[in-house]
């Protein structure tokens, strides 16, 4: 192929010269060019290499079905592999390079594979490479080589610097495709008052108009009309998938060079009432010898290059066709002054265009030319379907039309299998009950006027024309068979799948079309079988003695055309990947020196280091202070739910294992709730503010889940209960004030609340005012110290916290974080997330006594099943090192053996260094629990970190087991 630019015509702007590079060489194109047309205009013939045999590849099409010109565009962080040159608009400074070749696509040493091709038949790798040694060692040596040889482009390893975003839209009608049918459909619908979006994947609107001589002017006029009618027109927008509810996923290429703040691509989620698919048809190749040679091209693409881009793909052309469409291509070539011979497989056809030599009953058999196209051997097609070479036609362009296949992918995404149609020798969309209509070439209607009529009808929902064979029906020819020496007849030029591969697969029993696809990899390349599928099916049908309809097609999957992962992610990247939840005290915590940690989606203060302190130093100091004076901790992330109404007490009674109906007003109670299956779900406190008002707190992790569960219970199981739920988790902040001086601290900031033991006993709740804000105070302890929790509306949290801190600091108080919070609860033997792991029961946690025998509650029926009371269940214990100087590790296994061969007797769930006890302690779950193990020695098994440590099993209540400090 030796392409060149025509002097006039085309939808290019000759006043807008653009410089670009391919493999380091600088070239010039024009505004309106695609990368493929610009390369062709510069006479570049070899632009890629095949996947397996590394044979040279040129431009083969003018659209997303491209199988040859697949390049890398951009460099460094901007490098995008596997770009199809025909759909990439040229821009100033575009940098492109060839792929899958070394040192370059022009001279690729991988070409050696072509010599080996007789050994590289379909599926050969399943039959060898696993080596002679047992195991996987040999295979993995081969795999390294195979992986390097496979793949296409090379992706950047640096983060994609560009931005993407997501947008949403609704409309009455979404029209996909801006060819004659799509434009007509949009016009008709807009005329009927419909709100229409028209999406076109190409960077220029017009579809097949652009390929036709004189079509550009018609397209421009039609598009002007649509603009005037208020149609939303979206070029460079690929409708990549249709999903449930006829929701369309689309990706809009916003800019090739968005700069620092612009958007590169935008994902659209469109919810149309109706959809019209005017997605056109794709021209099919023919399987003949060396049909992958640079210079072999779809016939229709030749017209596109001539008319749209004013580029001649060659100087001397042969057209091989099985149908009428290529005759117009011949006329276009003549107009451009290119000599052309047309060979038509059919015995007769339309009149020859002026200046075109037509040979009927003749087919291409093999191309000649060792590197690029030099000619084609042609010959007559015999009755038995075999052809013999009669002569060689010299040419540098071979335009091939093996018929057309409608683009029915989007309908297939919705489920309906494509249906074979014998009139057009192609698959049409299966019928659907959804409001999706197909028109134009996508519906097998190829004549221009019929396409327009079909589009109009689809736009308004009326019946349109049906597919017709016409006066010179297309010949269903797919494969040119020859006697004698085998020829490489490619059907999937990207994956280098040949006709013989399909026949081999059939002989080996891979007869199902899905097996054929998977065994030969036909149709699994980046065009998803847009050009190879039909031939592959036809050859399989022929080989297995079935019809194409019986053979069927594989399932088309989204996306229609490959779409970037960045666009799908939109803005949901980096810090926006998941919401960051901050408590009302977040900034206050930071200002006061907090180091934050992730707790689910929350940022919580982890510890408050003094200068030079490590996390361990800090949390030990914080713990000591809580035990000695007072500490303040932000506990706002706990779930907080108002449970209100005349039946609120009864409701809570059903939800928790222990009783709540009789909880006095002004008191709080610790509660545990189970799942339906009897496992522990969540724990927290419930405060009774009045007869009918309760505040429930939940763990941070289950805040949302508990709320949803309570709503479910009230709306689906117990609708007769009069209870109102309101989540106040985000509205209220919570501050734990813990330690012997907690009362003193609180007393300093509140004047209207008697905090004496008599007036405010353990588990009491009171209203008060701190720093001018109304607060609720509960005397609750998670640490085992005298402690309070102060709840206040989020907006006043800073002021209340500051007031408390001002009062605590003179008392040698501290701020403490989740590390100390967790350590204090371990000393106290309180269970938390690491023990409430969804696999533990009340009995396992030593909380069996909480279960009320007087009432039923969720999970009660299931909690005593055989397996739930098995003496071998893992149960809560305390653990301490035998040698007090050794540390413990959460996640260590426990057993009496020092060398485990199974899961052992249990594991440590949580650990802390205990300043009070002077050694590390931990909580653990062990088979048989305290009853079996108390006082006994076990081995903590931790090969992941510390190895073995001798430990002793103790009661989990290490600190003040009688609770005197908390109550007193």
């Amino acid at each position, binding site marked *: 192929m030796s392409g060149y630019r025509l002097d006039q015509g085309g939808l290019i702007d000759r006043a807008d010269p653009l410089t670009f590079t391919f493999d380091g060489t600088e070239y010039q194109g024009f505004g309106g060019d695609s990368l493929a047309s610009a390369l062709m205009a510069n006479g570049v013939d070899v632009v890629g290499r095949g996947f397996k045999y590394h044979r040279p590849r040129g431009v083969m099409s003018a659209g997303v079905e491209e199988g040859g010109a697949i390049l890398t565009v951009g460099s460094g962080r901007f490098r*995008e592999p596997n770009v199809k040159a025909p759909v990439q608009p040229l821009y100033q400074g575009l940098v492109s390079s060839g792929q899958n070749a070394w040192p370059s696509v022009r001279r690729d040493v991988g070409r050696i594979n072509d010599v080996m091709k007789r050994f590289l038949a379909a599926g050969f790798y399943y039959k060898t490479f696993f080596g002679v040694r047992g195991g996987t060692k040999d295979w993995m040596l081969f795999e390294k080589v195979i992986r390097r040889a496979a793949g296409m482009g090379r992706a950047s390893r640096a983060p*994609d610097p560009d931005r993407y975003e997501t947008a949403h839209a609704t409309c009455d009608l979404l029209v996909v495709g801006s060819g004659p049918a799509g434009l007509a459909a949009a016009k008709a619908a807009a005329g009927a008052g419909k709100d229409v979006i028209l999406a076109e994947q190409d960077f220029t609107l017009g579809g097949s108009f652009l390929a036709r001589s004189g079509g550009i002017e018609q397209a421009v006029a039609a598009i002007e009309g649509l603009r005037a009618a208020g149609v939303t027109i979206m070029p460079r927008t690929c409708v990549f998938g249709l999903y449930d509810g006829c929701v369309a996923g689309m990706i809009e290429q916003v800019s090739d060079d968005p700069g620092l703040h612009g958007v590169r691509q935008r994902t659209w*989620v469109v919810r149309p009432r109706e959809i019209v698919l005017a997605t056109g048809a794709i021209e099919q190749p023919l399987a003949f010898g060396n049909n992958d040679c640079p210079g072999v091209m779809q016939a229709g693409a030749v017209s596109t290059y001539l008319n749209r881009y004013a580029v001649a793909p060659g100087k001397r052309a042969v057209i091989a066709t099985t149908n009428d469409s290529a005759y117009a291509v011949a006329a276009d070539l003549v107009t451009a002054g290119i000599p052309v011979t047309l060979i038509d497989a059919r015995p007769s056809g339309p009149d020859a265009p002026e200046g075109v030599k037509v040979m009927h009953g003749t087919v291409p058999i093999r191309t000649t030319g060792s590197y690029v196209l030099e000619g084609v051997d042609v010959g007559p097609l015999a009755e038995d379907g075999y052809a013999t070479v009669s002569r060689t036609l010299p040419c540098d362009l071979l335009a091939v039309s093996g018929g057309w296949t409608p683009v029915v992918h989007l309908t297939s995404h919705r489920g309906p299998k494509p249906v074979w149609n014998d009139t057009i020798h192609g698959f049409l969309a299966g019928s659907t009950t959804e409001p999706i209509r197909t028109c134009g070439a996508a519906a097998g209607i190829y004549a221009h006027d019929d396409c327009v009529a079909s589009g109009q009808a689809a736009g308004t929902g009326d019946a349109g024309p049906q597919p017709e064979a016409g006066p010179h029906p297309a010949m269903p020819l797919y494969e040119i068979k020859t006697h004698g020496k085998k020829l490489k007849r490619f059907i999937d030029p990207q994956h280098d799948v040949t006709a013989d591969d399909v026949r081999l697969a059939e002989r080996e029993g891979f007869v199902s079309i899905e097996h054929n696809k998977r065994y030969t990899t036909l149709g699994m390349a980046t065009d998803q079988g847009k050009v190879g599928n039909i031939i592959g099916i036809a050859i399989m049908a022929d080989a297995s003695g079935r019809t194409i309809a019986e053979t069927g097609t594989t399932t088309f*999957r989204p996306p229609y055309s*490959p779409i970037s992962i960045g666009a799908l992610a939109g803005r949901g990247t980096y810090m926006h990947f998941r919401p960051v939840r901050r408590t009302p005290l977040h900034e206050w915590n930071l200002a006061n020196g907090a180091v934050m940690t992730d707790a689910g989606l929350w940022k919580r203060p982890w510890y408050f280091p003094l200068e030079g302190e490590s996390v361990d130093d800090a949390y030990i100091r914080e713990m000591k202070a809580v035990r000695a004076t007072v500490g303040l901790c932000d506990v706002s992330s706990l779930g907080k739910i108002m449970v209100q109404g005349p039946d609120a007490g009864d409701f809570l009674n059903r939800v928790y294992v222990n009783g709540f109906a009789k909880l006095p007003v002004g008191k709080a109670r610790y509660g545990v709730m189970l799942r339906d299956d009897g496992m522990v779900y969540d724990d927290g406190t419930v405060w009774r503010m009045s007869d009918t008002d309760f505040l429930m707190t939940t763990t941070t992790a289950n805040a949302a889940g508990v709320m949803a569960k309570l709503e479910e219970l009230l709306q689906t199981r117990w609708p007769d209960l009069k209870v109102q739920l309101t989540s106040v988790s985000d509205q209220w902040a919570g501050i734990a004030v813990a330690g012997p001086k907690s009362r003193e601290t609180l007393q300093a900031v509140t004047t209207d609340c008697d905090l004496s033991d008599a007036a405010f006993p353990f588990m009491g709740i009171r209203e008060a005012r701190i720093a001018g804000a109304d607060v609720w105070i509960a005397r609750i302890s998670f640490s085992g110290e005298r402690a309070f929790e102060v709840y206040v509306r989020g907006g006043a949290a800073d002021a209340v916290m500051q007031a408390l801190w001002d009062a605590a600091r003179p008392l040698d108080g501290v701020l403490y974080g989740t590390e100390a919070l967790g350590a204090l609860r371990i000393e106290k033997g309180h269970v938390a997330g690491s023990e409430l792991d969804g696999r533990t029961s009340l009995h396992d946690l030593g909380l069996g006594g909480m279960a009320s025998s007087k009432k039923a509650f969720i999970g009660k029926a299931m909690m005593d099943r055989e397996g739930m009371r098995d003496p071998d269940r893992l149960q809560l214990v305390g653990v301490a090192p035998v040698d007090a100087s050794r540390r413990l590790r959460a996640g260590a296994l426990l057993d009496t053996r020092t060398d485990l061969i199974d899961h052992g007797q249990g594991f440590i769930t949580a650990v802390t260094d205990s300043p009070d006890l002077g050694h590390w302690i931990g909580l653990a779950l062990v088979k048989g629990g305290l009853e079996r193990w108390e006082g006994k020695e076990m081995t903590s098994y931790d090969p992941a970190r510390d190895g073995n440590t001798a430990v002793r099993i103790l009661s989990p209540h290490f600190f003040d087991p009688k609770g005197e400090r908390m109550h007193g």
Partner: protein
Amino acid sequence: MSHYSVWSVLREGLRGQTGWDRAWRDPEPKSEYDVVIVGGGGHGLATAYYLAKNHGITNVAVVEKGWLGGGNTGRNTTIVRSNYVQPVSTQFYEHSVQLWENLSHDLNYNVMFSQRGQLGLFHTPAARDGQAKRVNTMRACGIDAELLNREQVQAMVPHLDYSGNARFPILGAVLQRRAGTARHDAVAWGFARAADRLGVDILQQTEVQGILREGGRVTGVETSRGTIRAKKVGVAVAGSTGHVMAMAGIERLPIESHKLQAFVSEPLKPLLDYVIGYGAPGAHFYISQSDKGGMVFGGDLDFYNSYAQRGNLPIVQDVAECAMAIMPCLGRVKLLRHWAGIMDMSMDGTHIMSKTPVEHLYMNAGWCSGGFKATPASGWHFADLIANDRPDDLTAAFSLDRFERGYVIDEKGMGPTPKLH
């Protein structure tokens, strides 16, 4: 029958690939078999193979309504690992990995088990302890596992997001070096070919339409190609378990069918040499690169009961966000195809391999999203269950009655909510 080797590949290359036999026969169904396996996926075919190989039971038919491996065997993200934490599950999946290690040789078919190693990332100190427990458990059970810190992970895979911009920082990972990926289709084909060579009849395009019983005992299956009598019937049809078991009068099971999407990108030159699992809060994602070069990845279920083998946009977008969260270089890599498979989601997240209330009818189901890696062990132990009519040591725990008895095996601790497993 041709034996596959480098020599046979060379020989056939020289003689134009004309000497290859069918990979498996296409026989007419016999009127009676000792065992009929319903379901021609990896598990069913493996069961047939091990029935013949381990137990000498060769009068076996595998009955498949469509094409072999057309269900989840050919739809998954091909990860093989044995990093389970719950008792028996750990040992079961480790047995599977051991079978995988020699599977290509055993089957004389390259299933391309690539022990490239799997990294399970963690992102919080609490998660580190959880992963340490995983490592300890695996090591205790004789499985290779290492707890890596952030620097070690970065040295192995430098182009994950270690920047301060990451929403969840990578603190480290659990590495199982013997874990990896395999070529999913080849597993079905390899087992089919090997089973066929031992005399098993593989009946494709044969749909089971009824399960025949007499006096509480199974006697055969009614199929689209006629009645096939059988002394024993094993059902391995994950995704359609409820549908098939209902034919035996078992109308309700502790299983819901959910769909799980899978994704593949365009082929790229080697970009990722390991399998990566991502487990940040509220995110679930795994990615590896196929030998052909495609990035193969997946994430959460679509979260509603479904038998449709296609997914919806919210999870597509979510999975893309996860991909960008760990590998921000994937922004310009293009998604080639996405699809879905139907998972048997059990009520505790663990599979069911069990006798049933119908005598001599056995079920192999409830694999959730973990069935592919289990394929050889599933076949091995299900064959044992069928041959001996009693579960072996690695099967007993997976019984159907464990739910009512309160012996659930809840790997994730999510309780009886299938969508959460």
